[in-house]
């Protein structure tokens, strides 16, 4: 689809006259601004990567001094940082599992059934996504304060599942609604039982949506700061909270190492997956 547009755009402008710098600029202005926007998005990541090789003079890693690989060889050399990373991973995995399971159930109910209270349920799912994080964080914190629940691991987990649920529901629901119902009818016509139909046909078809929801949950939970800050205890410091604290006291270079390592690793996984998919498509 895009290639036809490309070709016809080229032939269309070619018919209009010879190429001049002004005309070229006009025709490619979108691409130039687009590339500038992409640079705006990516420069901070590159700065983080560059400064993971810095040896700063003071406690703050904001000005370049000299090249060093010290932080890369000793990533956990800062007190509490790798512990907070572990805590964030634990919470993200648990929150993803719970939110993906519950969200998938709800998505099937909303995509496949008609029932009373459906529009109310849709609104209930939509509202958390239309609410600023401070409001959700502060109000949930108020609930825990009022009911005298101890702030800690469990309260953070509860909060993370709460804001991940809606995103899972939206991802899975979109997928389920775009599935062809005739495939399941065919399975039933071929005498597959309800369980078999679900396990062999429905679930594999819905899997990409469920995977998208799970990945989104993991990313949201792992990187959440605002809601977490309102619902964490003094001894449960997640990685974003560690970075926030570091920003007040002094940012160790190891923070950049973790940030860069995650960036490079995730990029490699995604690009590798794309390459593999392309190769499969070709062969």
């Amino acid at each position: 689809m895009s290639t036809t547009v490309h070709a016809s755009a080229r032939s269309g402008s070619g018919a209009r006259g010879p190429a001049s710098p002004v005309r070229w600029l006009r025709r490619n202005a979108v691409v130039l601004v687009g590339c500038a926007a992409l640079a705006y998005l990516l420069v901070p990541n590159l700065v983080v990567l560059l400064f993971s090789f810095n040896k700063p003079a003071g406690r703050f890693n904001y000005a370049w001094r000299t090249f060093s690989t010290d932080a890369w060889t000793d990533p956990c050399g800062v007190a509490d940082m790798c512990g907070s990373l572990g805590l964030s991973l634990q919470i993200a995995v648990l929150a993803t599992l719970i939110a993906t399971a519950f969200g998938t159930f709800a998505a099937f109910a909303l995509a496949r059934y008609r029932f009373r209270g459906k529009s109310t349920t849709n609104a209930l799912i939509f509202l958390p996504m239309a609410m600023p994080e401070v409001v959700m964080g502060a109000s949930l914190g108020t609930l825990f304060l009022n009911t005298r629940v101890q702030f800690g691991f469990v309260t953070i987990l509860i909060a993370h599942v709460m804001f991940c649920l809606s995103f899972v529901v939206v991802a899975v629901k979109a997928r389920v609604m775009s599935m062809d119902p005739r495939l399941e009818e065919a399975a039933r016509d071929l005498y597959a039982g309800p369980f078999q139909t679900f396990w062999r046909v429905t679930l594999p078809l819905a899997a990409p949506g469920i995977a998208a929801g799970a990945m989104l949950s993991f990313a949201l939970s792992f990187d959440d700061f605002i809601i977490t800050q309102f619902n964490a205890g003094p001894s449960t410091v997640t990685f974003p909270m560690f970075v926030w604290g570091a920003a007040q006291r002094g940012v160790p270079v190891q923070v950049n190492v973790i940030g860069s390592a995650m960036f490079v690793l995730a990029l490699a996984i995604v690009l590798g997956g794309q390459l593999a998919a392309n190769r499969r498509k070709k062969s």
Partner: protein
Amino acid sequence: MTAVAPLSSSGPAPSGAAPGGEQDPDAAVTDSGGGRARRGLTPYWLLLPAGLWLAVFFVAPLFYQASTSVQSGSLEEGFRVTWQFSNYTDALGTYGTHFVRSFGYAAVATALCLLIGYPLAYMIAVRAGRWRNLLLVLVIAPFFTSFLIRTLAWKTILSDGGPVVSVLSSLHILDVTSWLGLTGGERVLATPLAVVCGLTYNFLPFMILPLYSSLERIDTSLLEAARDLYAKPATTFRKVTFPLSLPGVVAGTLLTFIPASGDYINAQLLGSPNEQMVGNAIQKQFLNVLDYPTAAAMSFILMALILIMVSVYMRKAGTEELV
């Protein structure tokens, strides 16, 4: 909601999923359910865990917050509901400028996101060809690094005497921005410009992804028809492309404006006390001052104002179905 759209649209998406499209597939499923009664309690059982979770940990807290916002008392003696509505007027009196600043910064950042994000989304959807998937990965790639770390990187980029500041200064852009009151003197950090720049940066992908998914869905034969009818490229864009991308514009502006107006990280890390937004005030009252009624009142005002603005905006924009 955002990152999902391009992923889910890659499947055999029903092209007729226009507004109200939600009802039609439903009906189809119910009718063609192979004689199976798709009623009864099953949907309620499926909804129970998620619904209960949201009811207890999302809806109930809002009621607790409403009750806290009209309490009075102190931390030592405890807070009691005394219907003290002066909490609201006090909060607005003390932090009125914070509210104005929050919505102002969020509005500017949203406009900038649209201005910067539209060309990029258009480029990916229409001009990228086989580079499309790679470019989409690059748009979400920033998320792979924790956003707090990336926001701190702006401290380096915008540092005093750094390359960005000297270029802006030598181009006399800083003179213009300081005349506008966005910067002061020869620095960008700890000014409104830095905060707006950080907000724009942090929420730009949330603008680009919905824009992309609605631009990508546009039927290219419509654009060819416009060209065949001798419409200039600008006219084609104004009359065909942009109106068809409106759902993406609406979704993108909401996804940018709502979190930006409640954000306090950019103001804290890139601004000075003069750029504090309402999020900073709520956070300070709740976590440092421990004045829960004031924090609750402010949070309630913020929520109400955003809900009002969003519903007015959505009515004006005329798109109901966003999810």
